[in-house]
């Protein structure tokens, strides 16, 4: 009997133990916002702050929006859900681009097949525009242009992509135009829309062109032959386009090309790899992350180009050694007034990232923790 008692007590004690360690489900709650204070600007400009879009890893539904206020120095993390708690599953999966036009903020969410239109001041959702496999957005004369990897989804004979035109007042798709395969970034110069085509769904048969769209007829005028697998496309103030080719990741390296929009020809090639860049006035700020099949490691580099003379600059925009802490640069912008450089670090893609702010001398001013895969920033003006 003694044995019985002891075994029973073991059973009872274990059961009680289980009870006490088992915690139960909490009531469902809105994903909360978090706040952090970083040193404010100290200089009052017409820029109120910026929105930062965190892409979130595929399938995780973790696209998120952060907001930074230059005046107060308050960095608000993950603001979408508290502002819009009624939206099922929030901002969605894999945020891919962000832009502010007029009083509205546009967020392109790739896997969620939508462009969210928010009030730029409050972050409150105004409308959702459904565009399957949407990638990037740009604006011109009251219209937004959104690139999408496929014009028609599910048609085996339709590998081409498209650009949708959205009326920014009515928030409706007005027109669509077929472009090259898997279009990426766009820019408008002289009422013409330039679209970088990648062809990323059919390696090694990448696209190698920029589609030129006439905005009045919304038809493709021509294609400019550049190089394979185009991605980034930005304009400078001299009527030139800077477009990056990703290469094929094996034998053909990544390169940066300059297109003169007066004759729509390639006028210069920079033999430098480029993952992303931004142009502010006469300077382009570049970084590149290249996986080396020789070493099995990522190699990161930072460079500057003078876009007026189209020459590589010797100077650096990070001068204090912080670059060694940045594992995976994912986004870059320059403050239009203070010339501070903002770089995001996505690290391993599955951890919260870091946003770094550098002074124009290249010294780190501050850093802050972001959401997962911080990548796209839009300045918010007063």
């Amino acid at each position, binding site marked *: 009997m003694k044995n*019985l008692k002891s*075994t*029973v007590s073991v059973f009872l004690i*274990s059961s009680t133990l*289980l009870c006490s360690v*088992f*915690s*139960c*489900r*909490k*009531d469902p*709650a*809105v*994903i*909360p916002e978090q706040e952090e204070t970083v040193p404010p600007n100290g200089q009052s400009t017409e820029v109120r702050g910026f929105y930062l879009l965190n*892409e979130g*890893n*595929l*399938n*995780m*539904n*973790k696209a998120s929006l952060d907001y930074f206020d230059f005046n107060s120095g308050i960095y608000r993390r993950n603001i979408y*859900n508290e502002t819009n*708690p*009624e939206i099922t*599953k*929030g901002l*969605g*999966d894999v945020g891919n681009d962000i832009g502010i036009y007029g009083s509205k903020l546009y967020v392109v*969410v790739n*896997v*969620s*097949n*939508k462009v969210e239109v928010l009030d730029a001041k409050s972050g409150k959702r105004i409308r*959702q525009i*459904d565009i*399957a*496999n949407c990638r990037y957005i740009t604006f011109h004369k009251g219209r937004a242009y959104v690139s999408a990897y*496929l014009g*028609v*989804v*599910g048609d*085996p004979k339709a*590998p081409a992509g498209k650009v949708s035109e959205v009326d920014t007042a009515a928030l409706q798709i007005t027109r669509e135009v077929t472009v090259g395969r898997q279009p990426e970034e766009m820019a408008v110069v002289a009422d013409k829309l330039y679209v970088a085509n990648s062809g990323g*769904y*059919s*390696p090694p048969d990448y696209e190698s062109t920029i589609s030129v769209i006439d905005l009045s007829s919304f038809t493709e005028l021509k294609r400019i032959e550049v190089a394979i697998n185009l991605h980034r496309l930005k304009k400078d103030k001299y009527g030139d386009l800077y477009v990056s080719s*990703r290469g094929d*990741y094996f034998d053909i390296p*990544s390169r940066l090309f300059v297109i003169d929009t007066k004759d729509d020809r390639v006028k210069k090639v920079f033999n430098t790899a480029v993952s992303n860049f931004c142009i502010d006035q006469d300077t382009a700020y570049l970084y590149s*992350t*290249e*996986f080396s099949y020789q070493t*099995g490691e*990522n190699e990161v580099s930072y460079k500057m180009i003078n876009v007026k003379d189209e020459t590589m600059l010797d100077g650096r925009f990070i001068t204090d050694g912080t670059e060694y802490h940045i594992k995976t640069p994912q986004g870059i912008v320059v403050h239009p007034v203070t010339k501070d450089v903002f770089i995001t670090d996505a690290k*391993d*893609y599955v*951890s*919260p990232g870091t946003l770094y702010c550098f002074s124009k001398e290249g010294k780190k001013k501050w850093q802050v923790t972001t*959401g997962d895969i911080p990548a796209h920033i839009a300045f918010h003006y007063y």
Partner: protein
Amino acid sequence: MTFLFRDPGIYLKKIFWLFIVMAVPVLVSAQDSDDKFKIPLNDSIKAHKLKEVEVKSHRISSTNKSPVPVQVLSGGELKRTSSLSVADAMRYLSGVQLKDYGGIGGLKTINVRSMGTNHTSVFYDGLQLGNAQNGQIDLGKFSLDNIEEITLYNGQRTDLLQPATGVASSASVYLKTLSPRFKTGTKLNAGLNLKAGSFGLINPSALLQYKISDQIYGSLNTSLTNANGKYKFRYTNGTYDTSAIRSNGDVLSNRIEAALYGKLSDEGTWNIKFYNYQSERGLPGATVGNRFDYKYRIWDKNFFIQSSVRHNVNKKYSILINSKYANDRLRYLDPEITNLNGLLENEYHEQELYFSMANSYYLTSFWQIAISTDYRYNTMDANLYRFPHPKRHTVLAALATQLKIKKLDLQLNVLSTSLSDQVQEGAAPGSKQEFNPTFMASWQPFSSDQLRLRGFYKSMFRTPTFNDLYFTQIGNRFLKPEYTRQYDLGITFSKTYDDILLSAISLQADAYYNEVKNKIIAQPGNNIAIWSMRNLGLVHIKGLDLNIKSSWELSKEVSISASMVYTYQKATDANPAPNENYGDQIPYIPVHSGSLLAGADYRRIGLNYSFIYTGERYNQAANNIYNYMQPWYTHDLSAFYKTTLNGNELKLNAEINNLLNQHYDVIANFPMPGRNYRLTLSYKL
């Protein structure tokens, strides 16, 4: 939709107390009046019970005497788990986390003691199921209708006479199919089974066993599974409350297995087995904002033939020879991607050839040695851009020895692994050679054999898979193997009783510490679409597994079995700085998890209750609020009724699973089914 109970916590506690309260009066009465159980039992029942007790006590002793933790689910207990697939049943074992993408067709893999899915091998009737492509076995594809027993070994199986692959992983699952047993005078067994229920499930299966001669038995088993995979799921944050139907989870699969079993004159055995599985499935995607429906499809064609011969040369020397050929094809269609060739369609073809010879020899009555050598050849082809069509040769050799001195059982083995890959494109990563030791001990400290202490140390590794190494643009040929080191100390207790209510109890408790080094992790490369595999992770795992099993004889007609499993795992990211997630619990591993299984049989009726609990988890590396996942727990109930039809047994089993209709995700954004039902009709000829 509303919850039945406002605060599930209160209900949870009630269930526990109910469970305990149910047990207490039984125990009290047992102590008061032992006498009434001394009434002689009806002979046939008695014989039956005796047999059962024998089986039980044998089982208890083998698991409790093992120097490594062993958990067995078999027969009635397996049925009590209300499981459709092997994967569902594995949730009742301690130290196991099931990765479940939901539904009948969703991928289901297991992770033993947080070391990662690739560190667990799955053996089907003694031979390993291979997957050189990604090293993971989808246990959801293995239906339970012809599985007799599932055994999980931490470390390795302890039989000395086994293939070298048997010691070549950090944990092993053995699936044993129904082997033919004939009543005296009968030559034929046949059974028909029909399952139907939620998700549009219809699952007929048939079994035929024939005694060709006294030495040779044949067996044929086939099943068909058809389901639309639809179920309701719900997501809410308190403000939005969205319910929808899970789509694209349909499955149509069939399985045919044929086997011949033979006995040799020297008490040796042989068998040859043929297995064929085909399926077409929808692949449900992540339910994310604005997108719940996907159109991915997958076709599987798996086929293998395997044979095994065990020959006892003399009383001291035995040989085990195994061979296998496997051919696996997989076709994947993503209609949402169009490339220049049309819709994205990938085809993968894997083949494996395997041969093993194991020898064991008794040097003395207490000292045994064994040597086994395995050779495996894997190939993989795929219609992928720049795919290198790898071929891999693996030679394994294991040297093992066992000393059984009175109360002490010591085992030591060393495994040598030689590996070389050939590729059609690019540089091959070269050949690899590893040596890995394992040490195991079990000790009975007292004269009674009820209590034993045990422990093991095992160092092992897993080779990078073909995907890790060669997947276009992701694969990284610089990868090193991923190493594990396991330390385990445990105590086991078991006792059977003849004259009281409690007829048997067994307890296993193990504390362990594991290290996973060079963990292979996907890391971002040039852009989000292109990742690369790296040896980056270092994980430290401190754990505790607790198993209690008990059987009760309430009266000569009422028997109860109850078991409980608890797992504690602190599995932390131990990568040195700079690492913001240092010390955080690794993704998808709960600190606390456990299960309860209870069943009562009365005459022709049986009732079963099971409960599974998984504590809070994080779905990514950082333990922050955005990665937090709620605990989940499900209650399953089932009942059966047995009768006879034309003198043959007919059994009807009804299940209600996830009784409280809890909506939860095992993997973030892959919702699991709410309350669901299943009916099973089985007829034995």
